[in-house]
């Protein structure tokens, strides 16, 4: 053993084999050898007259120390090694780095005694001149201190001032960002935990000299240190102790006047961070000066980033002042400070037509945001002024500004909690504010009306208990009047709806006695349809009902009436609106379990309606309307996703029973098919047992919930749907059938039934597609494939390959490409995660990875007339794909994208340019490489005659390119700027506008505005 150790050591010293340290460490840990033996083996090298050999030997010890488990050494061993290695610090300077590295390992040892710790520190402080070491070795020193400060703080504290002055010397003039990040972390711990005593100024100097941080990492910098890391590290040091206030505040004051935007922001953010630790006493002296600097930035900078920083600094400043001890000196108190601020700027609030009004509003709001006392003081000072100003104004813009500022203050008060003893100060002005909001609702400009409504909403929430029923009902009536005026703009009606909904939630009786009766009356009022009406039409009223209804109480009131309308013949013309209203109600309410009862009632109503009335032609016409059907399906879909198993079973058997009612007696499937294909005008009521109405409604009942149907007729249903899918139906019913079947296949549990179903579908499709395949067969294929791709079924490959084969076909190829759109575009009504579809995680990415090469090779092998099918399929494949999946494959894809731009296919060109736009943002480095081929093609397309959409897309892509690095763009600047001149005179205005933007971006991308 000893012999092999000696040879390891020898190999290491001669530089052959660096792995020796690891091996020796292993033996040490296993106690095969002892330290004594190793040191003996090393003896001759450690005492060698050649410096490099001694350094190498020290290095071996250090390496071994890093490899052994850190609790292996006993206190005595640690002591011996430390004493020995510290001696090495005094040897030749080239021995210092390995010695420090060894000490770093020892400082992490749990058996390090506090005497040894103190020895390490003293030796380093006396023997090591940090500035003359290399960057990596300096880092070892800082890491060593960091290890001691984080694990042995108590022992370090005992060293007191010696440690501080030693550290200051080590850190002094450090320039490397990697080392600075560590040394800032050390400094912060020191400042917080060791009394700085006489060294506070030195400590401040050694960190503050880096303020403000000016550092731009090179792109290839491997360390990954960002400017932000340094800024935050330094800021934490400055904010670590109130002792720094006397030095730091003047420094921040000075940097606030800097021309450099980043320095200004850094100073403001640092002020925000420091204010709390420094405390009121340190800040009094500077408060006015800081306030006037902050005010200047808010009023004049016009830069949102500076303003945000300034406002949050002001909030912190006021918060810190508020913590001060109350004294009789008014100047040194929160009240005095806020008073001073108010005096300086409240006059701007009196002139709401001028620019500074809004800035002043924001400034005072950040003061109010600091504490509830400052909020109280500011609100009481400004609210009367604002209300008064509003009443004096005649123009709309100033009024708009006043309401905006008032709303801001209401928002600020929401940050604090109030009680009965300590009410929200805003409520003192409740009456005046309600009056102001009512007046703003009477204005002509919709933006004021909207603001007024928002404020009113907040006020009603704040003071829910403070409003009497009369006041609330007064407001509700006003809202109702506004909402039912035909002249009311959409944005206002939408806002009104929100307020009314919230009001009704807190005042249920209002809903029952006032709101719904008024609206229902409008619905039943025939005179409403008179031309030149002042009042909202009935579809509009239904939209309002859908918007204001929330919670089980309101829902019950609303649905009770609407279900009645469904059975009322005179409302046939309104069916699209009535059903739309139901769909919206179900969408907004079904997540509330208390609402499900009212909603399921509706499903029964609809079922009854279809079963009993559908055989009457007039009713059938109305019910089979595409819009009505899709609304009803949506109504069922949203609630079905929340049904429990028993409700699901009930509804499923309700629908299945009626679906199969006539089959058993009549059992004539050909007739069913005729009916299904039939138009309403040759409708044959007695034979109806299955048709598009029924399948449309069946789909959500069967396929939206978590429970798979177990009805006895279910297998028969799927078989019949599979049959219908291959029939030449009209496009709309065909789509319905495909969706229903796809949703069922997606959820059907794995097993024999599913396999048989899929095999039979596959065989049938294969045979029809070989003989006389038509578009609807392809679309059926793509729906089934979609159902399988989503769940990741084992049959996927066969079905996808069928689609690939079709892409090469000259007559069905285009349909197959469109099939890929079906396959990969998310649907809103079936196969979604809300409808509990069986969706495999990252299915899109998997699909892309699996089939990309088939598409690329298919494209290469295909003839000229089918090439674009492959390109189109590829474009659908890439849509919405995560860039991490796309980028590795871009070299393969990019040539195909360029080909797509050259194809004379409008959709393909547009989709491709959309993909390119995405890539410009997500993969700039790839696009940068290809810019040479891309720019001429895009420029050519900016004058593509047949379609303005292509021209606009191309111009958008060109404008998007300007986000690439400047050096990439510069060579093309002149060419692009020149080539866009003719496009400025395009015959279409929308193209011209885009050309102006693109040209502007290209002219200005290298202007220095950063």
């Amino acid at each position, binding site marked *: 053993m000893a012999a092999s150790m000696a040879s390891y050591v020898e190999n290491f010293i001669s530089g052959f084999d660096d792995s020796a340290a690891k091996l020796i460490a292993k033996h040490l840990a296993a106690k095969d050898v002892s330290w004594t033996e190793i040191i003996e083996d090393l003896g001759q090298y450690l005492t060698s007259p050649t410096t490099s050999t001694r350094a190498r030997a020290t290095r071996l010890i250090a390496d071994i120390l890093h490899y052994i488990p850190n609790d292996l050494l006993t206190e005595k061993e640690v002591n011996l090694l430390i004493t020995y290695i510290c001696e090495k610090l005094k040897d030749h300077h080239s021995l210092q780095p390995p010695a420090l590295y060894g000490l770093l390992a020892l400082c992490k040892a749990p058996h390090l005694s506090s005497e040894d710790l103190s020895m390490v520190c003293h030796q380093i402080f006396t023997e090591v001149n940090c500035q003359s070491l290399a960057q990596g070795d300096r880092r070892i020193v800082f890491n060593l201190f960091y290890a001691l400060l984080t694990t042995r703080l108590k022992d370090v504290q005992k060293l007191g001032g010696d440690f501080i002055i030693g550290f200051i010397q080590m850190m002094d003039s450090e320039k490397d960002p990697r080392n600075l990040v560590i040394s800032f972390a050390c400094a912060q711990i020191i400042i917080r935990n060791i009394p700085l005593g006489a060294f506070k100024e030195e400590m401040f100097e050694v960190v503050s000299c880096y303020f403000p941080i000016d550092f731009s990492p090179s792109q290839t910098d491997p360390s990954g240190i960002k400017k932000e890391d340094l800024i935050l590290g330094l800021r934490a040091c400055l904010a670590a102790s109130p002792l720094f206030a006397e030095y730091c505040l003047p420094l921040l004051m000075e940097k606030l006047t800097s021309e450099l935007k980043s320095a200004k922001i850094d100073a403001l953010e640092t002020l925000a961070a420091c204010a709390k630790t420094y405390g009121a006493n340190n800040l009094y002296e500077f408060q006015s000066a800081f306030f006037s600097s902050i005010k200047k930035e808010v009023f004049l900078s*016009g830069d949102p980033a500076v303003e945000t920083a300034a406002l949050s600094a002001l909030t912190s400043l006021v918060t810190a002042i508020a913590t001060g001890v109350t004294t009789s000196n008014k100047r040194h108190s929160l009240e005095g400070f806020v008073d001073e601020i108010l005096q300086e700027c409240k006059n701007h609030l009196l002139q709401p*037509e001028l620019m500074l009004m809004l800035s002043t509003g924001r400034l005072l709001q950040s003061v109010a945001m600091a504490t509830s006392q400052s909020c109280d003081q500011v609100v009481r000072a400004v609210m009367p002024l604002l209300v008064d100003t509003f009443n004096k104004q005649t123009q709309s813009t100033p009024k708009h500004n006043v309401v905006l500022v008032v709303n801001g203050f209401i928002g600020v008060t929401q940050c604090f909690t109030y009680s009965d003893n300590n009410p929200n100060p805003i409520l003192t002005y409740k009456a005046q504010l309600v009056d102001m909001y009512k007046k703003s609702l009477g204005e002509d400009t919709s933006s004021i009306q909207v603001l007024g409504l928002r404020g009113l909403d907040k006020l009603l929430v704040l003071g829910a208990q403070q409003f009497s029923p009369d006041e609330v009902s007064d407001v509700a009536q006003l809202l109702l009047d506004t909402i039912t005026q035909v002249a009311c703009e959409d944005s206002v009606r939408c806002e009104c709806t929100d307020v009314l909904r919230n009001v009704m939630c807190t005042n249920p009786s209002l809903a029952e006695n006032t709101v719904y009766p008024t609206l229902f009356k409008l619905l039943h009022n025939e005179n409403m349809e008179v031309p030149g009406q002042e009042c909202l039409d009935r579809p509009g009223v239904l939209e309002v009902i859908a918007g204001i209804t929330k919670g089980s109480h309101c829902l019950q009131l609303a649905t009770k009436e609407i279900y009645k309308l469904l059975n009322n013949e005179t409302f046939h013309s309104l069916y699209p609106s009535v059903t739309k209203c139901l769909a919206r109600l179900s969408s907004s309410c079904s997540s509330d379990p208390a609402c499900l009862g009212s909603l399921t009632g509706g499903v029964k109503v609809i079922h009854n309606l279809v079963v009993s009335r559908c055989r009457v032609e007039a009713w059938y016409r109305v019910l089979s309307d595409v819009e009505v059907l899709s609304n009803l399906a949506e109504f069922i879909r949203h609630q079905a996703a929340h049904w429990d198993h028993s409700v699901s079973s009930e509804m499923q058997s309700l629908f299945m029973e009626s679906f199969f009612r006539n089959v058993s007696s009549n059992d004539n499937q050909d007739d069913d098919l005729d009916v299904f294909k039939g138009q309403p005008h040759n409708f044959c009521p007695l034979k109806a047992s299955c048709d598009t109405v029924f399948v449309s409604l069946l789909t959500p009942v069967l396929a939206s919930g978590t429970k798979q149907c177990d009805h006895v007729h279910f297998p028969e249903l799927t078989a019949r749907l599979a049959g219908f899918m291959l029939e030449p139906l009209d496009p709309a019913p065909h789509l319905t059938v495909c969706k229903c079947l796809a949703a069922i296949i997606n959820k059907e549990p794995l097993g024999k039934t599913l396999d048989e179903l899929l095999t039979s579908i596959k065989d049938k499709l294969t045979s029809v597609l070989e003989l006389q395949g038509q578009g609807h067969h392809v679309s059926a294929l793509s729906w089934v494939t979609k159902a399988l791709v989503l769940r990741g079924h084992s049959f996927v490959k066969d079905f996808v390959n069928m689609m690939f084969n079709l892409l090469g076909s000259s007559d069905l190829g285009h349909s197959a490409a469109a099939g890929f759109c079906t396959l990969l575009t998310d649907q809103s009504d079936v196969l979604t995660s809300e409808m509990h579809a069986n969706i495999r995680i990252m299915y899109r990415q998997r699909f892309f990875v699996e089939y990309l090469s088939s598409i690329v090779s298919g494209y290469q092998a295909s003839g000229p007339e089918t090439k674009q099918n492959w390109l189109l399929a590829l474009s659908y494949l890439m849509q919405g794909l995560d860039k991490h999946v796309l980028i590795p494959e871009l070299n393969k894809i990019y040539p195909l994208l360029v080909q797509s731009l050259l194809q004379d296919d409008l959709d393909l060109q547009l989709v491709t340019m959309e993909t390119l736009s995405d890539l410009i943002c997500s993969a700039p480095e790839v696009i940068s490489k290809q810019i040479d081929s891309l720019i001429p093609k895009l420029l050519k397309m900016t004058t593509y005659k047949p379609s303005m959409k292509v021209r606009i897309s191309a111009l958008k892509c060109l404008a998007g390119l300007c986000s690439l690095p400047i050096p990439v763009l510069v060579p093309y600047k002149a060419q692009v700027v020149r080539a866009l001149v003719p496009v400025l005179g395009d015959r279409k205005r929308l193209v*011209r506008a885009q050309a*102006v933007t693109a040209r502007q971006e290209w002219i200005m991308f290298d202007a220095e505005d950063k």
Partner: protein
Amino acid sequence: MSLDNANPVVYERTREREVLPEDEDDDIEDLFDDREVFDLIREINDPEHPLTLEELNVVDSENVHVNDTEGTVEVLFTPTIPHCSMATLIGLSIRVKLLRALPPRFKVDVKIAPGTHASEDAVNKQLADKERVAAALENSHLLKVVNQCLASKRKLG
């Protein structure tokens, strides 16, 4: 920094132009109109305030006149105060914007609205002199200031 007018009146912005069905019809040709040219210049930033020329009412749609068939554009702008020292710079910015955004067939006139500025004639003369405008744009400092006025707001944020 001292401003000519530290707290100017702010005006409401015009709504975005509505897109009509015929605007999206490939077969109909859209002529240049007053509104289109106004839209080009209304977003120009004021050199002093964080506001656009439209918000300061320096430009308004009434004072933009376009004749597509004759190929003429006339823009009259109103400085916020009669002694505004920025009038020339504002005029120059409008000119440069239109130079970059309109097809070269248009003859563009940018002037101060009559009676709204103390040295109206002098400024108008400068703005009308093509060579002086070209020379001004050779000056890299001036170009930088003009570009700041023309930079889109989104980028500044």
